[in-house]
């Protein structure tokens, strides 16, 4: 019986508890509570003046009860009015940070709901930082309207040389009545990105085969609908994802960061949004945070109208990128470049690795699910946008392989791929890759703090470092859909530098000998090469078994 009980324990541990949503009941109960809140406020208001009211009542009771009741009523009304004014004056200062942020997102959306045409001017201030790797990979998620009429994710790439910075001007116009819009981002007066809809066609500047930015346009289909929420692709919250969903999911990461006075003398509150690390636990992770310094965003919200004045990204305690709201004003139709005519794009010579640009993430639409399971090697090779790798031979102790495509525009600006090799003995292998952050673990000041130990340099050009203890289980945790097991606390985790300059991570649910590690690393090959080597071996995958999950 003991073994069966253990089995029950293991099953219970491995199961993801079901998650239920019930917005209808939530709304009903909210209504009930609001009513109770209103009643209680009334009682509180009355109670606050009860002694005076009682005294008045006692004195008058003998001769004019009606007047006494009237005065008591007036006192209660006065208290309510006081309460109303008092709370209106203090509402901004007292509002919890996540409610304030929610208000700010709503205020941002409301900018696009007024009559006439609104013009919004923001600037992206790329701050000088000394870390070359952090300076190189700086980017910001954004959306644009593709000529197909669908929204798609882009990355605003903002690289700079160490110690250097620059400013990107971001102008947007929106006509609420017709859905027409234009957005032009410039550096030194030359466009690095432009996108518009003039009511009949969608315009976009895109690089031609020679890399020269040119305006392309396409008439929209008869059933074309302009995007419903312009704040998703214009304005200061456009990079934060769908604001409502964002704040609901991340409310536990939002906190108050104090009050400030803006350069124009107006008052504002600052809300801090910490990096989401759902699923990470343990003291070691806390230690790691201390070693790596703080990384978060600061949202500055105006007291006058709850609009966002500034969004600042801080990495390792350094200001990394500041997006500032410069102006919001009505505009006339004649001043808007609805068809991008006259927009001068950046010349090819300026499009150097350290110059800003907008990079497309191919075939990704906001409607796409965040995780696409069981994609094929071919899909990974074609869609990654960087050199994706795979083991030429599956680890010998494993029995099945699954490749998941992961897309989270906030945490993971590029497409990520997680290959899970399941083992019968529980020694599962997870190989995860994308093309952004982990490089900073081994290059630059962050690396000096982390002091990762290099454990292998392979003859085919890979370098391998052992990751801090909690990273292996963290990665395996992400693969539980396939492994169906809680990761072992002592799972091995490694960071790999590939010859292509990407930094995948490897985790094994258990110990890995040096020989096994070397064999695995030596067998890594580009996915494209794998396809040439094993053309018939990729029959499985999304085409055959693909499923999606949000």
């Amino acid at each position, binding site marked *: *019986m003991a073994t069966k009980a253990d089995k029950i324990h293991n099953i219970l541990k491995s199961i993801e508890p079901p998650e239920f949503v019930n917005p209808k009941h939530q709304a009903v109960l909210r209504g009930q509570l609001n009513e109770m*809140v209103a009643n209680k406020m009334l009682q509180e208001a009355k109670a606050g003046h009860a002694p005076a009211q009682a005294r008045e009542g006692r004195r008058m009771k003998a001769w004019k009860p009606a007047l006494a009741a009237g005065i008591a009523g007036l006192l209660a009304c006065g208290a309510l009015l006081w309460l109303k004014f008092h709370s209106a004056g203090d509402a901004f200062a007292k509002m*919890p940070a996540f409610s304030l942020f929610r208000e700010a997102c709503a205020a941002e959306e409301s900018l696009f709901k007024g009559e006439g045409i609104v013009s919004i001017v923001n600037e992206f201030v790329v701050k000088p930082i000394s870390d070359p790797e952090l300076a190189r990979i700086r980017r910001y998620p954004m959306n644009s309207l593709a000529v197909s009429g669908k929204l798609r994710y882009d990355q605003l790439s903002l690289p700079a040389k160490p110690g250097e910075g620059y400013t990107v001007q971001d102008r947007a116009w929106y006509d609420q009545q017709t859905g027409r819009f234009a957005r032009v981002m410039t550096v030194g007066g030359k466009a690095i990105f432009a996108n518009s809809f003039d009511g009949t066609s969608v315009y976009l500047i895109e690089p031609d085969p020679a890399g020269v930015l040119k305006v392309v346009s396409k008439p929209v289909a008869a059933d074309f609908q302009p995007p419903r929420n312009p704040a998703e692709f214009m304005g200061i919250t456009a990079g934060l994802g769908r604001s409502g969903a964002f704040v609901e999911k991340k409310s536990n990461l939002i906190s108050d960061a104090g009050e400030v006075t803006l350069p124009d003398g107006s008052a504002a509150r600052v809300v801090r949004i*910490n990096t989401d690390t759902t699923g990470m636990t343990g003291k070691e*992770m*806390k230690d790691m945070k201390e070693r790596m310094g703080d990384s978060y965003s600061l949202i500055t919200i105006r007291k006058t109208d709850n609009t966002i004045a500034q969004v600042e990204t801080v990495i390792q305690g350094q200001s990394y990128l500041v997006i500032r709201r410069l102006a919001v004003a009505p505009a006339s139709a004649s001043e808007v470049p609805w068809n991008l005519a006259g927009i001068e794009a950046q010349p090819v010579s300026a499009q150097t690795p350290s110059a800003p640009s907008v990079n497309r993430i191919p075939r990704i639409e906001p409607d796409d699910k965040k995780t696409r399971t069981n994609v094929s090697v071919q899909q990974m090779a074609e869609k990654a946008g960087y050199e994706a790798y795979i083991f030429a031979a599956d680890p010998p102790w494993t029995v099945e392989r699954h490749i998941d495509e992961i897309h989270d525009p906030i945490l993971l600006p590029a497409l990520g791929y997680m290959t899970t090799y399941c083992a019968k003995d529980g020694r599962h292998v997870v190989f995860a890759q994308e093309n952004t952050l982990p490089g900073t673990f081994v290059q630059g000041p962050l690396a000096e703090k982390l002091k990762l130990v290099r454990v292998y340099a392979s003859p085919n050009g890979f370098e391998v470092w052992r990751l801090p203890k909690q*990273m292996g289980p963290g990665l395996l945790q992400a693969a539980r859909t396939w492994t169906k097991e809680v990761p072992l606390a002592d799972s091995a985790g490694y960071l790999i530098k590939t010859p292509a300059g990407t930094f995948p991570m490897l985790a094994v649910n258990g110990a890995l000998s040096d020989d096994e590690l070397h064999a695995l690393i030596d067998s890594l090959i580009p996915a494209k090469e794998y396809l040439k080597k094993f053309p018939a071996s990729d029959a499985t995958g999304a085409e055959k078994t693909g499923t999606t999950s949000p």
Partner: protein
Amino acid sequence: MAEAMAILSCEAARENRVEIDAELVRKARTCAKAFTDLYEFYYPGIFNYAMRTTMNVSVAEDVTSETFLKAFEGLTGFDPEKGSFAGWLYRIATNVMRDHFRKRSREALREGDELTYDLLRVKRMLGPRTMSQPAEQLEQHQRLHKAILTLKSAYRLAIVLHYFERKSQKEIAAIMGCTVLTVRWRLHHARHLLAGRLAGNLGG
């Protein structure tokens, strides 16, 4: 993977949450409206706890409503020094569910009534994350959950709190108002009961 690559500690977020709650509770005492912020944040957790324990939509809705109404009424009795707001809320929900189970056991039940597993309605409530789980996993979970529903309330609550709500034994003890040893015993005994009831259905 995104989680694994992220930087900051979840512990910090949790500490942050406790601070936010303490501040909101403090505000809610003088300005009742602050309570609605607590409600918005904790509704999903409490409703899920009630669903996972009862697997009955109507009961879970009643339990959730009663929990929040009681919390609202009794907010002045909450002492942040003695524990987190989340723990306090779970304790109320647990007591509400115990009352529910007690009442039901006094009523003359039709055979198997306690096992009401309104599958269609329950399925409609499933969030997108759960819907995306492999069918095989969902089935196994449903089998196990049906067996959990046959346990007496003390065992059932311990199992749900520990395995589904991911509470530590210490937290469960605080929520259920008993000692850690009692929690350990209940979990141990509940696993044996489940093993007995699921004999032959465990697979492998």
